[in-house]
């Protein structure tokens, strides 16, 4: 009886963790800064401190000749020579210049007084990649710092620009869905094999998608390692996780502990919410199925050092496996049809499990066989229990007479407002002399209590707190002797 309850709860967990994949496609907005003095800085400059040699812009790219940021209503740029950087390593060098209408000035550097009223100040970046005109096609984000002339304030506007469309300003027009805006190493680029590789990502998480325990997972593997015979393809990947602690824009960066071996790499970056099922699947070596809680994912590739001839050979022969792993649309037509016959795909289909079709098959199993009476009632119950839609708490009214039966008064109680509003009010009051509110203080204690309770229950259960199992040797022996 106890285990049947356990089964139903486990089923709830299983069904509730079905994957939901969302495509990443940021929408464009308009960037307009109204008033104020600005400078562009490298984010690594702490608290808006001005970098040596002038203002800096982080993670820039220069694909179209000119980067234009427009200020209106007296906006002003503090500009000097700029360095464009991508996740810590300098990739672009050039100069910022300013043009202003009505011949207010030829160089808008350090000149705010001339900008009043509704003049428009346009800054453009006039630099380029040193030594080459090749430009990586990827989006980056920028930080535009707010200054009071020569006194940096540390306040900045952050926006994303893919180099082609209109920039997306944080706060004004954030992406419409959780998205991985950019990753490092940049897709289809070559990084040095003589120093550790910088790994990083810039992501946007919708407030509705955010949950505790959310993280950005970045994993990479060398194509040529696909030749190795391993129990699970997941073992070929080196995985890094970066906890996402809040919704909105977040940036993550780290370096690999050592240099990477030369060759072509594939990298998959995924935003995931915490899932117990993922942990279990990873533990048992079925990491390729650990897609539960996936919000969005992107796959890129990069080259470390120079490709050797062997690398090129291996990369071309294993490309089919990599494509197969990344695809969920390769069908058995690869084996059966003359027109679409593909031997590598056909062999892969036989032996390498694909997550999507198996998930679909299990879904069919749930929707067909498991929905028949009488067990269909259990399936329906599990489906209801695992539905995460939430609704506001109900309101209720109390009507009572005031002195006479005809003189009635009605009081309405809004439970949602009482509890949510009360909680918000309570959380807005910090403890005396510190910034912690009652939730910050009590939550660790509540969790400690729950954790200790669990430990006690489990230890008691394991140490035969219920008098021992039916088949337990010591207990049954003791029963036979009449000691129990």
């Amino acid at each position, binding site marked *: 009886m106890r285990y049947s309850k356990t089964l139903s*709860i486990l089923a709830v967990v299983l069904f509730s963790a079905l994957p939901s994949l969302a495509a990443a496609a940021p929408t464009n907005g308009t960037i307009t800064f109204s008033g104020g003095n600005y400078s562009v800085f490298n984010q690594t400059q702490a608290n808006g401190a001005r970098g040596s040699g002038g203002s800096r812009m982080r993670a820039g790219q220069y694909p179209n000749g000119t980067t234009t940021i427009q200020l209106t209503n007296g906006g002003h740029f503090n500009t000097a020579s700029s360095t464009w950087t991508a996740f810590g390593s300098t990739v672009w060098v050039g100069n910022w210049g300013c043009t202003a209408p009505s011949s207010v000035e030829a160089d808008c550097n350090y000149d705010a007084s001339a900008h009043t009223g509704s003049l428009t100040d346009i800054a453009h970046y006039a630099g380029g990649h040193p030594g080459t005109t090749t430009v990586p096609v990827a989006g980056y984000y920028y930080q535009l710092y707010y200054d009071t002339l020569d006194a940096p304030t540390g306040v900045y506007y952050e926006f994303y620009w893919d180099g082609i469309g209109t920039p997306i300003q944080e706060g004004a027009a954030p992406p419409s869905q959780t998205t991985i805006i950019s990753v490092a190493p940049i897709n289809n680029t070559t990084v040095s094999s003589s120093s550790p590789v910088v790994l990083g990502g810039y992501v946007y998480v919708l407030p509705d998608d955010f949950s505790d325990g959310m993280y950005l997972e970045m994993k990479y593997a060398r194509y040529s390692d696909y030749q190795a015979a391993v129990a699970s393809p997941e073992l070929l990947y080196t995985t890094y996780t970066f906890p996402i602690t809040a919704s909105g824009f977040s940036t993550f960066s780290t370096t690999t502990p050592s240099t990477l071996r030369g060759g072509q790499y594939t990298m998959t970056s995924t935003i995931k919410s915490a899932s117990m099922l993922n942990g279990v699947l990873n533990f048992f070596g079925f990491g390729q199925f650990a897609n539960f809680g996936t919000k969005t994912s992107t796959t890129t590739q990069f080259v470390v050092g120079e490709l050797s001839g062997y690398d090129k050979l291996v990369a071309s022969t294993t490309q089919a496996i990599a494509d197969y792993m990344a695809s969920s649309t390769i069908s058995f037509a690869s084996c059966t049809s003359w027109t679409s016959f593909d031997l590598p795909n056909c062999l892969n289909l036989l032996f390498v499990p694909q997550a999507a079709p198996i998930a679909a*098959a299990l879904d069919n199993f749930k929707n067909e066989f498991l929905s028949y*009476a009488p067990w269909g009632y259990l399936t329906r119950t599990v489906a209801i229990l695992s539905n995460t839609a*939430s609704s506001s708490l109900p309101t209720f009214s109390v009507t009572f007479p005031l002195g006479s039966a005809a003189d009635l008064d009605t009081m309405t109680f809004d439970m949602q407002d009482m509890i949510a509003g009360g909680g918000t009010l309570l959380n807005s009051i910090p403890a005396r002399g510190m910034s912690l509110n009652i939730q910050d203080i009590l939550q660790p204690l509540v969790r400690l209590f*729950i954790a200790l309770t669990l430990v006690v229950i489990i230890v008691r259960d*394991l140490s035969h707190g219920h008098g021992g*199992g039916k088949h337990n040797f010591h207990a049954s022996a003791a029963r036979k002797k009449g000691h129990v």
Partner: protein
Amino acid sequence: MIWYYVILFITTTLSAAFSWLPKITTLPTILGVDIDGQLSSGMASFYGFANVFWPIKDVFLGALVLFAYYGIKMILRFFLGHRAPA
């Protein structure tokens, strides 16, 4: 893909064999009480309550951990029989 076809075979066979049974899409209404609707709205309210009252989530997570423990024990019992602990 072999596993896909194994699952497909099981699904098809079982579904065909039991296709004469009625398909359940909603829970029944008993004595005028819409069990399906009540349970759905009840769970939605529960999630709403859990969203505004944070300890509920911790208690719920604790319960899940406990049931996971029982689940692991059940699996051990299945494979080890009477040699399983407790």
